[in-house]
């Protein structure tokens, strides 16, 4: 049987998909990919459904080996140096790993999570409609825990479909947009201004449950305990120490700290890909604009198949890459990361 073997993998790497919905009323968190666009791009390259299960790879280096036949995969999300048996391969492309060969990935650059989709998707037994790992609840398939070296993911034999690349459309950049609330009235004007006017950094202690923020102390108006109520992906709660935490897909379904604001759904993946120590700001927008952005983001995901290109046009880009080098720009032929950022 054809499979993909995990040769080595760092922490925070697990099978994720669009998440599991409908049981938050029982305390079951949705989980799912931290960066939906990265997941959808990797899947689209292989003709999979956009939110099919794929490997979400944390910041560290990883290696996968094909066994029992060639395995066709695609890479998207945070870029890394990548090679198959020493041959460089690029992100945002599909590729076939020959039987017995190894795809080796370096550290994530300019992001935290990369996505490796497998042609035909990952097969497993969905629970509540999802294969996503939720270790605490004992959920996930084929493994109910983050991936480890030696794990095996069943794969279909590579179809031989011509490889493709995806030209991702420009998405928003700059400030992470939020809607104030639901408990912004638990903070004085000055605290809200401090929250919106300051530069924030993501603490290295962040994980799939929450991103802890480093910056000024945000003081509460009436103390830090509220009656526990429901949370969403992107809820920004402010605990007693005044250091906000952005709740991510493995969050608790309810929480007892006031939530000053909520990251809009279109910007959550961008926040997830912000590396620890990188400064960023929040910007408050109105409901009408936030909902327009949510729709635009969904349309962007739906239109991803239109962004697929043949791999031949990439060879043209290699020409362009050469030209760029001649022109003296800082483009490295051995660094796949600069291929699409510099052309």
């Amino acid at each position, binding site marked *: 049987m054809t499979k993909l073997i995990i040769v080595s993998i760092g922490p925070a790497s697990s099978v994720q998909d669009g998440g599991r919905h409908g049981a938050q009323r029982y305390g079951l968190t949705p989980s799912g990919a931290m960066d939906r666009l990265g997941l959808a791009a990797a899947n689209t390259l292989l003709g999979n459904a956009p939110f099919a299960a794929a490997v979400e790879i944390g910041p560290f280096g990883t290696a996968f080996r094909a066994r029992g036949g060639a395995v066709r995969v695609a890479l998207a999300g945070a870029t890394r140096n990548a090679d198959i048996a020493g041959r460089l391969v690029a992100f945002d492309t599909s590729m076939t790993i020959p039987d017995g060969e190894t795809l080796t990935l370096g550290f994530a650059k300019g992001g935290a999570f990369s996505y490796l989709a497998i042609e035909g998707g990952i097969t497993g037994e969905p629970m509540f409609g999802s294969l996503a790992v939720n270790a605490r*609840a004992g959920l996930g398939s084929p493994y109910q825990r983050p991936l480890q070296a030696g794990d095996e993911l069943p794969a279909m034999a590579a179809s031989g479909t011509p490889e493709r690349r995806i030209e991702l459309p420009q998405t928003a950049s700059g400030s992470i947009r939020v809607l104030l609330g*639901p408990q912004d009235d638990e903070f004085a004007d000055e605290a809200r201004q401090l929250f919106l006017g300051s530069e924030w950094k993501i603490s290295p202690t962040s994980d799939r449950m929450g991103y802890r923020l480093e910056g000024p102390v945000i003081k509460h108006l009436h103390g830090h305990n509220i*009656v526990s109520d429901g949370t969403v992906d992107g809820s920004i709660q402010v605990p007693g120490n005044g250091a906000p935490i952005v709740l991510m897909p493995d969050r608790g379904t*309810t929480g007892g700290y006031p939530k000053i604001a*909520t990251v809009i*759904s279109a910007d959550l993946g961008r926040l997830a890909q912000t590396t620890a120590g990188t400064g960023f700001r929040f910007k408050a927008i109105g409901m009408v604009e936030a909902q327009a952005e*949510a729709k635009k983001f969904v349309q962007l995901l739906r239109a991803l198949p239109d962004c697929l290109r043949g791999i031949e046009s990439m060879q043209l880009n290699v020409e362009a890459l050469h030209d760029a080098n001649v022109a003296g720009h800082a483009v490295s032929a051995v660094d796949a990361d600069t291929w699409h950022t510099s052309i």
Partner: protein
Amino acid sequence: MEATLHPPRLLPSGDSAITVEFSGHIDDAANRRVLALDRAVSAAPIAGVTETVPTYRSLLVHYDPCQIAFETLGEKLLALAKVPAPPNAKTKHWRVPVTYGGENGIDLEHVARTLNTTPDEIVARHVAGDYRVAMIGFTPGWSYLSGLEKFLHMPRRQNPRILTPPGTVSIGGVQTGIQCLAGPSGWHLIGRTPMRTYHLHRKPIFLLEPGDRISFFAIDEKRFAEQDKAAEHGDPVAELMTS
């Protein structure tokens, strides 16, 4: 003519959820209205609503902004919240076995000392209570109960414990609760139940529903061990009352 109830507050929770808030604090009447609105939404589904999460004093309504706008959904929810809902015919009443004190309830003596009474008195009062599942949240099956008598109210611990055992029955502030999985807790641990509120290989996977009535009865450690095994194999262990 039916009395119109005071309207809840609509609080945006991002672009894909609305918090419908009935009260600022833990309040039995507010919780009944939350559960009533939850039933009303499930009885007459609104296109675009994907999931609802009832909590003590608010209902979180998740929706798809591509299908329904905040304003439109808000109006529909306000209209539903205006009408007093009929009582829930499907409310279940569970009798839940608990072994109190000892290794399974390491804070029972401390609670008794703090409240100036004996562990037996704490147990007697706890089993005498008539509770309701006000909400389930935080981690799978963690059931927050309302109806704890005032005598047993006790502020949470200053330092939450990192790991508390599965099935723990505890007191935190004005609430008592049943946690299903091992995990952190700042509440006072008075006992353990063999009942699994969440069990993947049982039908139903989640035993309790928000709104269910709960009462407790004391069992000894030997009975706990037996029932724990039975529960592991899918026995609900808790007794369903016909009421």
